[in-house]
């Protein structure tokens, strides 16, 4: 507790009531490394006599001659050793005018996640600038993040002014630069203050060294800055935390009002199902309430039996939240592994948790210029705009309208680490995105878990040329090496998938189209697919090739002369064909168009099927080495 009062008040009750009613300002200090963030908070607390004597004595033991005020905040051993701030420290103090929660956040880019932690709940950011350095990349980054997270007010603390002889020109120049750069960030107010955190200039009182500055000292400004008033008219939102059912007679929904207010008798709608009901009672331990407003933790009893379990939301029927499984959001990435479109994460809102995939990274935001740049992935500490698809619909608002119901985090499935934070922009209409879903974005991840590169090996050749025999031999080889494979055999698919097709040219084309589509799905699932199909026409083989990704389709021409095939005649078909008993038989009564440039050309005469399978395997190995997988 840090609470300054020189004389104990006589009327403690009145004093406490007044103290309890003070407004709270939550602020962060941010900016680049060594700009003096921790020192400034230390100085503020020290000069305002808000530091306990034993805490001060401890500093003396650790610091040198001058008290190192940063050590008041840097509570971790590693921080004191390295003389840097690693994680956010929270301090609580009050003056006669206001209560404060300050989050001292780290300046290193490496610890951006901890800066975001502090910023997510703050009303105001004190952005420090070293007056010798001016605006640095981290100044821009932290300003952008603060704005993105919904912080509306900024104090630009131009620090270390003692090191530039308290020159007004230095201060003015930095203030102008910052105003110019920040004008696109949409802050409601920016207050530049010239300070020296080390010596206390303009921290709690006006400095005699800056006679040219007539504005408020930092503490005075923090005590009086007008915060955005609570918007009472915001629509009612109540994310359900859990259903409370102590006995058969009571069923209530426990949660904290995220926005708006609710009265007994008010109509509500269950966001995800659209079921309507109204509020029968607002239950608390301290008695039932007539009204509950934003921030209150209550239990709502409804007049009807509805299904509103955890993760659902009760809302005002006239102004409902979005319910969708596709949305666009700004995402800041914390994971050591990059964010990849197509990979599956757990998306957690305040009370909901679903599987989610980033279907598209629309662009990345350049932290320096705020320009949109194309990107394939987001690296740690990068910000991007993403389309996200969830396995089940979630209820939400736009972050700009509601910080509580418009946020989410992304959790890595394997490590459970919090790898990203999201601020929802808007829902996406389903039709716009079915197409995204259907593309092959998931393939890489699936293939990676199988440790292989997916592909479609398309064996073409006359009936009896040896396609299935070779494919089978290759399948055994790959399987023995732990590869995930599947053989789509022309004869076999005609027993099921293509049982309705005959041997007319149209049916043969459809036969190939279907098999190619199935092969494509299997490759998308990460498999190595072996297709054994006469596929006599170049057009259909090309069609199949074009369905697949580049380099994924491997055409293998199993080249056996017609008379050799007829001699082998494993199924007795040539005999029937020559006797005119089978119409449209390839090579006899229907043409076979030889491949012009197959990836592999296998002449079977004089070679064992096993040797040919080995040859294909070697080809696949070379192909893998040529690429990265």
């Amino acid at each position, binding site marked *: *507790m840090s609470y300054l009062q020189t004389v104990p008040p006589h009327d403690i009750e009145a004093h406490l009531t007044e103290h309890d009613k003070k407004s709270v300002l939550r602020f962060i200090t941010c900016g680049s490394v060594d700009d003096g963030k921790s020192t400034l908070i230390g100085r503020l607390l020290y000069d305002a006599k808000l530091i306990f004597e034993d805490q001060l004595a401890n500093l003396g033991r650790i610091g040198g001659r001058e008290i190192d005020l940063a050590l008041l905040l840097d509570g971790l051993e590693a921080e004191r050793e390295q003389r840097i701030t690693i994680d956010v420290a929270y301090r609580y103090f009050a003056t006669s005018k206001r209560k404060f929660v300050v989050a001292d956040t780290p300046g290193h880019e490496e610890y951006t996640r901890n800066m975001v932690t502090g910023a997510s709940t703050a009303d105001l950011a004190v952005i420090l600038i070293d007056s010798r350095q001016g605006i640095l990349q981290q100044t821009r980054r932290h300003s952008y993040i603060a704005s993105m997270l919904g912080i509306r007010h900024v104090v630009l603390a131009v620090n270390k002014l003692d090191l530039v002889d308290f020159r007004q020109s230095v201060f003015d120049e930095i203030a102008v630069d910052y105003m110019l750069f920040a004008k696109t960030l949409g802050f409601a107010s920016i207050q530049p203050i010239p300070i020296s955190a080390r010596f206390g200039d303009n921290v709690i009182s006006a400095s005699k060294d800056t006679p040219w500055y007539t504005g408020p000292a930092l503490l005075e400004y923090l005590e009086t800055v007008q915060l955005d008033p609570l918007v009472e008219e915001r629509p009612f939102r109540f994310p359900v935390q859990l259903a409370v059912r102590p006995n058969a007679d009571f069923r209530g929904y426990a949660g904290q009002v995220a926005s708006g207010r609710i009265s007994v008798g008010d109509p509500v709608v269950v966001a995800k199902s659209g079921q309507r009901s109204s509020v029968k009672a607002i239950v608390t331990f301290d008695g039932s309430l007539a009204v509950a407003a934003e921030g209150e*933790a209550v239990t709502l009893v409804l007049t009807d039996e509805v299904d509103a379990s955890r993760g659902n939301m009760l809302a005002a029927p006239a102004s409902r939240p979005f319910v969708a499984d596709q949305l666009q959001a700004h995402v800041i990435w914390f994971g050591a592994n990059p964010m990849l479109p197509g990979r599956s994460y757990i998306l957690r809102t305040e009370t909901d948790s679903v599987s989610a995939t980033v279907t598209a990274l629309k662009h990345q935001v350049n932290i320096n210029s705020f320009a949109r740049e194309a990107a394939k992935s987001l690296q740690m500490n990068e910000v991007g705009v993403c389309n996200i698809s969830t396995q089940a619909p979630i209820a939400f608002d736009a972050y700009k309208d509601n910080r509580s119901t418009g946020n989410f985090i992304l959790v890595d499935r394997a490590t459970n680490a919090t790898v990203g934070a999201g601020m929802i922009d808007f829902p996406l209409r389903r039709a716009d995105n079915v197409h995204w879903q259907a593309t092959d974005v998931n393939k890489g991840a699936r293939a990676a878990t199988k440790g292989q590169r997916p592909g479609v090996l398309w064996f073409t050749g006359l009936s009896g040329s040896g396609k299935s025999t070779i494919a089978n031999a290759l399948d055994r080889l790959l399987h023995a090496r732990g590869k995930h494979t599947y053989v789509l055999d022309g004869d076999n698919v005609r027993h099921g998938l293509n049982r309705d097709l005959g041997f007319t040219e149209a049916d043969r084309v459809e036969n190939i189209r279907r098999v190619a589509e199935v092969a494509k799905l299997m490759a998308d699932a990460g498999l190595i697919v072996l297709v054994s199909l006469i596929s006599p026409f170049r057009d259909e083989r090309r069609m199949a090739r074009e369905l697949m990704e580049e380099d994924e389709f491997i055409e293998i021409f199993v080249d056996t002369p017609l008379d050799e095939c007829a001699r082998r005649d494993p199924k007795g078909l040539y005999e029937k064909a020559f006797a005119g008993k089978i119409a449209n038989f390839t090579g006899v009564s229907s043409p076979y168009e030889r491949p012009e440039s197959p990836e592999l050309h296998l002449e079977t005469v004089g070679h064992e099927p096993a040797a040919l399978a080995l040859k294909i395997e070697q080809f696949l190995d070379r192909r893998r080495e040529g690429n990265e997988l």
Partner: protein
Amino acid sequence: MSHGNLQRLEAEAIHVLREVVATFSDPVMLYSIGKDSSVLLHLATKAFYPAKPPFPFLHVDTKWKFREMIEFRDRIAREVGFDLLVHVNQDGIDQGIGPFTHGSNVHTHLMKTIALRQALEKYGFDAALAGARRDEEKSRAKERIFSMRNAQHGWDPKYQRPEMWKTYNARVGPGETMRVFPLSNWTEFDIWQYIRRENIPIVPLYFAARRPVVRRGGVLIMVDDDRMPVQPGEEITERLVRFRTLGCYPLTGAIESNAATVPDILRKMLTVRTSERQSRLIDLDEAGAMEKRKREGYF
């Protein structure tokens, strides 16, 4: 917020308590009998009303707590009717571990840290709620509300999960557990104001009374039982004292005070110039002592 600060803090804590129940399969609340635990117990009663708190309460007993604490514990458990588990590190008892014979570090490590780890493993709890506050100590000021512990119960302060808004990542892997601190954002002053507002019963040791004490190393130690060795030159005197925090009696310093009621204490706090943990001997042993213990699995 149209309501006061206490209302806001209460709602925040209730939200956290409910999140824990909704997302963990076997949560427990650590009940240390002190004022913060008393507040947390009270909040748990509110959070699930009209249901009872859907988790048991665990007291890790070092067998060196003030006698009045144990009496209070048993009375409250009876009156409130909560499911109280008491765990003692029996190995430590068998070895005769105690603060006088083994020093505060060994005693605290074996009888609190190790004992807590034993209890969490014995019952298979995946989340442990506790009343620690960020304003108590500067390494605590760095800790998350949902704070991960690895399978060895250790805290890794350099790799804490980011924690944005009120959207908590409650997922833990096999063997990992979560410590959860619903009172993270409360100050000592908030706690006392809330105790006053809600009439929460607390151990009488917090209020001034004449008690037998010995001055040792500049700290007043209460002679709570005959295990306390009185050294040559030391004298047991009756003084008007109270305690700002409670723990093992040999490790907890009393302060001379005449504050006999909660409003008295609040009035004193307005002028107090030292932190509450100054009376905790275990924190004074070395710089970074708290962080070190937390890394080992202490709260």
